[in-house]
């Protein structure tokens, strides 16, 4: 087994045993589900919304090159500077060189999955910049030095007691068991950072080609402050985020908020088109937009799996996934976890290394059903399994299936084997659950289903 798969298994096993953590996550997600269903019900036609959102996003992708050129032209017209990055390394170099050029010391950051994807913080910190996450959940996991647990709710795996202890230790604050007080501690600490920061870095949810503007969705106002106070603003955004028209946002913004956060629309949806204009008093003097490929064109090249590029990163598929609910966000070991992560990671980072994620699914289809842009997630996982199967034939599996084919193709051998099987199952309890058991991997925590007392053929013969 490849080492990444082994690690995945180890982490998953450990988090399955962490019952309290699972309870916390499960309670949060089941409450969320009730609220989300209420919000979905307020739509006049949610299902049509999913179809139209899928059609619009696909239309934008089908003309991706033209849309990107239009976006870039308009952004430049608005006074922004655009950078193209084929890889994460490129993107990190671009951002670090802007920071160096501007003599920056302190950088504030609002939540950006693209930055997680390329490990931007580590790269900037290594070069001596202080990088502070401003989204409350991200701020908490940054203090803990761990990656976000969930695309939308980064710190959902922590209790307020754990967060209070963390703040006491790192921020020297008084312990409290109130979420509100904890939030205010973070607010106070971060206010000072926004004001002192030289650069603000954000992600982006949509890039509107016809306007030359980036749309950022958030609830806390931290991205608004990140974009308002520092003298330089940088947005790191995946190339697949392009939509054509401003009005398309009228559909996407409510779909994103409803599916992802059980809100009709998020607290702040803001369009940024450039640095401050001549008639504006504040805002950054420079606006840089970094367009990131990093494996996205690879995904686009597959005529079926390219559907996954429609993803608007709402996290809805994580919230309903029985595997995610059980093993949690850190077990995956990837930036994008849950069903969408299991679909896109093998394509973006190598199928040999990450194919094991295709099996982290019960194929129940709950993810596909909730996805606001109708990505057929569980069929993509199935397809990845098939590709993984053809790409890495293991000699013993091939042999085993050859033997199985021989047996199942011969009625005599088949009936002989079922008889043996029944005998074997009678003797099985002697070794069941011990290391001598050839089915140990299965039987250590499950039962084997008993083989029927008689086969259909035997029953048919008896009947006459």
């Amino acid at each position, binding site marked *: 087994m490849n080492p990444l798969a082994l690690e995945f298994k180890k982490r998953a096993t450990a988090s399955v045993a962490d019952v309290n953590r699972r309870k916390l996550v499960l309670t949060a997600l089941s409450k*969320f589900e009730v609220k989300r269903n209420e919000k979905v019900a307020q*739509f*006049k*036609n949610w299902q049509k919304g999913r*179809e*139209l959102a899928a*059609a*619009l996003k*696909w239309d934008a992708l*089908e003309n*991706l*090159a033209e849309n*990107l*050129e239009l976006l870039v032209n308009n952004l430049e017209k608005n*006074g922004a500077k655009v950078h*193209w990055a084929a890889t994460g390394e*490129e993107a990190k*170099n671009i951002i670090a060189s802007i920071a160096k050029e501007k003599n920056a010391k302190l950088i504030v950051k609002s939540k950006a999955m693209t930055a997680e994807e390329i490990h931007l913080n580590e790269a900037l910190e290594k070069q001596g910049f202080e990088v502070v996450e401003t*989204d*409350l959940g991200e701020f908490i996991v940054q203090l803990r030095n761990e990656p976000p647990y969930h695309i939308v709710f980064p710190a*959902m795996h922590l*209790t307020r007691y754990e*967060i209070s202890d963390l703040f006491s230790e790192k921020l020297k604050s008084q312990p409290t068991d109130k*979420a509100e007080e904890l939030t205010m501690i973070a*607010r106070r600490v971060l206010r000072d950072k926004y*004001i002192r920061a030289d650069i603000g870095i954000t992600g982006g949810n949509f890039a509107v080609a016809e306007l030359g*503007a980036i749309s950022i969705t958030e609830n*806390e*106002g931290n991205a*608004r*402050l990140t*974009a*308002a*106070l520092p003298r330089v603003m940088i947005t790191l955004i995946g*190339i697949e985020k392009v939509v054509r028209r*401003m*009005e398309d946002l*009228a*559909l996407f913004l*409510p779909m994103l908020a409803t599916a992802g956060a059980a809100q*009709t*629309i998020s*607290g702040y949806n*803001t*369009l940024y*088109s*450039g640095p*401050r*204009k001549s008639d*504006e*008093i*504040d*805002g950054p003097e420079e*606006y840089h937009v970094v367009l990131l490929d990093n494996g996205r*064109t690879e995904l*686009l*090249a597959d005529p*079926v799996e*390219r559907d996954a590029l429609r993803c608007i990163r709402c996290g809805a598929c994580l919230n309903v996934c029985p595997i995610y609910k059980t093993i949690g966000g850190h077990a995956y070991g990837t930036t994008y976890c849950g069903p969408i992560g299991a679909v896109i990671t093998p394509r973006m980072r190598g199928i040999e290394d990450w194919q094991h994620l295709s099996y982290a699914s019960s194929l129940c289809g709950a993810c596909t059903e909730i996805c606001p842009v109708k990505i*057929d997630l569980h069929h993509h996982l199935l397809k990845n399994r098939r590709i993984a199967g053809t790409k890495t034939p293991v000699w013993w599996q091939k042999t085993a299936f050859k033997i199985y084919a021989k047996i199942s193709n011969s009625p005599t051998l088949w009936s002989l084997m079922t008889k043996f099987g029944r005998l074997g199952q009678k003797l099985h309890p002697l070794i069941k659950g011990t290391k001598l058991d050839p089915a140990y991997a299965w039987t250590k925590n499950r039962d084997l289903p008993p083989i029927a007392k008689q086969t259909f053929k035997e029953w048919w013969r008896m009947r006459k």
Partner: protein
Amino acid sequence: MVEDAQMNDKSTILTLIRHALKTPTHAETAKLKEKYLASGKPSVEEINSILPPCGATFEENLSIFKKNADDLKADFYPVKSLDEAIENLKKIAQAENWKLIATHGNGDLKTTAEKLGLPAIYTDKKYDVHELEKCDAAITYCDALVAQTGSVIVSSRTNKGRAISVLPPHHVIIAYKEQLIPSLPEAFALLKKKYNGNLPSMISIITGPSRTGDIERILVLGAHGPKKLTIFLIA
């Protein structure tokens, strides 16, 4: 060096995209596109046939906006005149013990600030960010109100900047009757017309006070932005 690499990256990425898209997409997605986009991009009506309902008359939209504002824990006051708004504001200022406020522009906002009788900083002139941070409230105009979602739209043109609508802990909005728009698609259509070819650097759709649920999914208002959002609609 960096410039060269980026030029290369641009043409590499665009070439990869064009190459990838030579293979047509599969039938399921193509069918959806055919179904919805064959006769052009969706209209305002089509998008509204999906989204939550909005009203047909001003009164209906007013009551939808009010309900949404309540749900969002924003304070909404439909008032008859600016004077009525100022009377209410005086009570709020007293209750919250305001000492310093921020505002911009002239006209009604200037009148409001003067009648409140509190020291004010004007962010449409050069201002000190530390001073703005000390303000107890910001009083601003807006571009539109959206009934369907209970949102307020502001921009860096209308407010002359970005920080005033997010830095002080209480954001007060003065809006007018014709600014109440039934739905989000209509609001976008309006913005597009209003700013055609000359976008402000920031347009923000604000829905309720700043909020977070990042700690045990418990709702807390005022995560980083305003803890309170008060909207006066003069109609």
